[in-house]
């Protein structure tokens, strides 16, 4: 066991856990933040995506000791509050993206990261830059929403 210090969504916490445990289980079962999902367990589907020190990480395959003393942002921390949505979430609502919604936290975290790296992505940039899996088939709306989110962010018209 190892004491892991992490700051999750601006809250500093310490957890006594197996250092090899995937970060996903710390987020979900120890910190009780359930928005980050399990889909595959081998970094294939992206349902577990979160930001660790600003990097996009598939937390199901990221040993928790690597997150020690780092800042983690999960879907619950993407927006400051429901009245001030991140442009990605705003666009997701506007375009009505989710169906079952299970993979959408991961997609939104990947999309938010994409916009950090590339503030004005083309459709091709989005198609090649995000490799998460959705089974309901929300793909066309995800692409549309990311293009919209980029506009919202660049125009500063987020609420």
């Amino acid at each position, binding site marked *: 066991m190892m004491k892991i210090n992490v700051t999750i969504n601006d809250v500093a916490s310490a957890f006594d856990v197996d250092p090899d445990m995937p970060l996903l289980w710390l987020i979900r079962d120890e910190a*009780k933040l359930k928005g980050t999902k399990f889909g595959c367990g081998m970094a294939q589907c992206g349902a577990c995506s979160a930001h660790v020190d600003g990097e996009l990480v598939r937390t199901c395959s990221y040993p928790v000791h690597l997150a020690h003393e780092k800042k983690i942002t999960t879907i619950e921390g993407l927006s400051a509050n429901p009245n001030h949505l991140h442009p990605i979430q705003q666009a997701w609502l506007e375009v009505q993206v989710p169906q079952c919604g299970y993979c959408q936290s991961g997609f939104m975290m990947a999309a938010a990261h994409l916009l950090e790296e590339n503030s004005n992505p083309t459709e091709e940039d989005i198609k090649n830059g995000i490799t998460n899996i*959705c089974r309901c088939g*929300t793909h066309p709306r995800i692409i549309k929403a990311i293009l919209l989110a980029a506009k919202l962010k660049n125009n500063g018209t987020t609420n």
Partner: protein
Amino acid sequence: MAQPTDKPKKGFSRRKFLARSGATIAGSLALLYFGRSNIRSGISQLAADVKFDAGITDFDPMLWFEVNEDNTITLRSPKIEMGQGVFTGFAMLAAEELDLPIDNIKVVHASTSTGPQSTAATGLSNSTASLYTPIREVAATLRETLKLAASKAWGVPISGIQTANGVLTAGSRRASYAEIAGQTQTWEIAKTPALRPASSFKIIGKAQKRIDLPEKIMGEAVYGIDTDIPGMLYGAVLYCPYVGGVLKTADTTLARTNPAVLSVVQDKNWIGVVAKTRFAAEKAIAGIKATWDFEPNYSTKDAIEAITVGNGVTVVMEDEGNATDALNSDVLTSEYRTPMGFHASMEPSIVVADVSGETVKLYTSTQNVAFIQQSIADQTHFKPENSQIMPAFLGGGFGRRAFKHNAIEAIKLSEAAGKPVHLLSTRQQEFQNGHVRPNTHHRLNGKVDAKGKIQAIQHEFATGSMAFLGMPVAKPLLGADFMAAGHGGRVPYAIPNKKTSIWSSDLPFQTGLWRGVGMFANTFAIESFIDELAIKAGADPLTFRMAHCGNTALLQRRKKLLQKLGEQGGWRKPKTDTIGRGIAVCEDHDTISGAIVELEIVEKKIKILRVVQAIDAGLLVNPDGVRQQVEGATMMAISASLYEEATIENSQFVQTNFHNYQVAKLKDTPQIDVLIRESTEMPSGVGEPPLSPVAPAIANALYNLTGIRLRSLPLQAALDSYYQETGS
């Protein structure tokens, strides 16, 4: 809470509802007491016209609804929200009759102890179709019941009371629904009033934002996996990795001596552990040494051999005219195959079981609450009255959660640990120990006369079962699963001579429902073959299809849909030689769905450029929800048509995760246009129908581009094989 107390003993409008739903599958099964082939065939033809009902008999408004203090009304849904948008559709139906803004309606899943129950699974695209009238009736009855209560409280006749925006008024008197509910001690349930005509709808039929999305974009929606109750521990289970295998020996010493492990349970065919964390439970499972008895060297080849026309039990599903005699010369024969497929729902199977003495509470993601409750009663000592099932949002359904579940394992682990246990399947178990869409084989014979008319067509197909997984008694009676796996097997065109037969064989692994059931495979075969016949006749594939739409109402709707698809979908628009264009259509439980696909081949890979979908699903409750479903079905169909294939080698499913089970990703997204044919028919399904025309439309477009006729799915693998075989 202003929860009304005196519940009436009887539900209302039950007879009316049953009368409307007509014969049910359960009813037709009851007719069966022996399985001779002519009886099976008769039942098969009867079953073709059966409308699936919602499997709900209790329409007591007090069971369905709760009037809350903040003047919102909670609707307890007997159907599960798995992404198809039923919560929003149901809220719209209720709001229309309740005279309440839709924002004031909350929808939650009914648990077995709190709300109306459905004996049928959520699926078959029938939730909105089957509850379109009943939900409005139960909502209208609640409205009239509230008026009745106000009329008594105020001493005014009910005819003088109006409702609007959640407020009751009579002259100067005024009270919110919540105020009336709060002061009413004894309820008199009103008679079900006449429903509002579609012409006066204010909510139904208008695009409505989904009510479940705000919590879904915040990461706050609760799925089965998110269940977290005090004292909860984590389970993990070891299942047999071999198809049809059984547990021979198990050495659990390491697990039993592992200080992190709290319980070890060895059952007939699985071994489970309970630990404080999932990671510890999974590590302990990895340390168990087990041996298994299984048939060695079983492979996909064996499954294909078993599922071949001519093998097993056969049932004639359709026999009009005399196809055998008509197919005497100049016959075109083609054979098609579809592979086994996984659902790959993003949320694996999940159950949290909380056993306490003789009762158990179960939190789970399921499409079939009633089936889980019954299987618990069958396989454990918890009788239905002692088990409470709390369904959650599903991380995808697609048929995966209709029958097979891990509730029994979770219950036994919770019983052993004396604590609630969270049991989540791994992705590998989802694939290797779930159930697969069965592979299929189709042989079609057809004949076109000199005038370009199809004189006869015969469709013989072989498939594993889909529905028998949940109905063990049905198998010996029915012989073949013509209801689910055989769905879509009949040739839906006006042709004088046609015959359809299904062949069924046993497979040593579980096969089950998959989105669209048999319609997916059968439409691939039939609509590819219709294209082959059109080409043989030298006809345009769209014109050819329209020329074989007869005079029945459904075929006329098909013709009009094809016309719209052709005109607005760019069928005759000039295109370059590098683009292939194909078309296909299907009808699925009264919904007509057709698609045009445009594609190109880039470096030997199929690239879908554009899919135009046209759908006629009767009256649309939420048009934007319908568009969402059509787009989603299109993407899932592209995935299944181009890439997905489950295979077996050395008695194991080869695919263990997404690295070797390819699915469509963002890069595979074409332009998708949705055309809706407006109609005032009763609403019919939308979740499944648009899926089925996609595979044949792709295959037909590939032929159009290359002259290569690919007759097996997945099409990318079929194209790869073609290139390999021809050295091109």
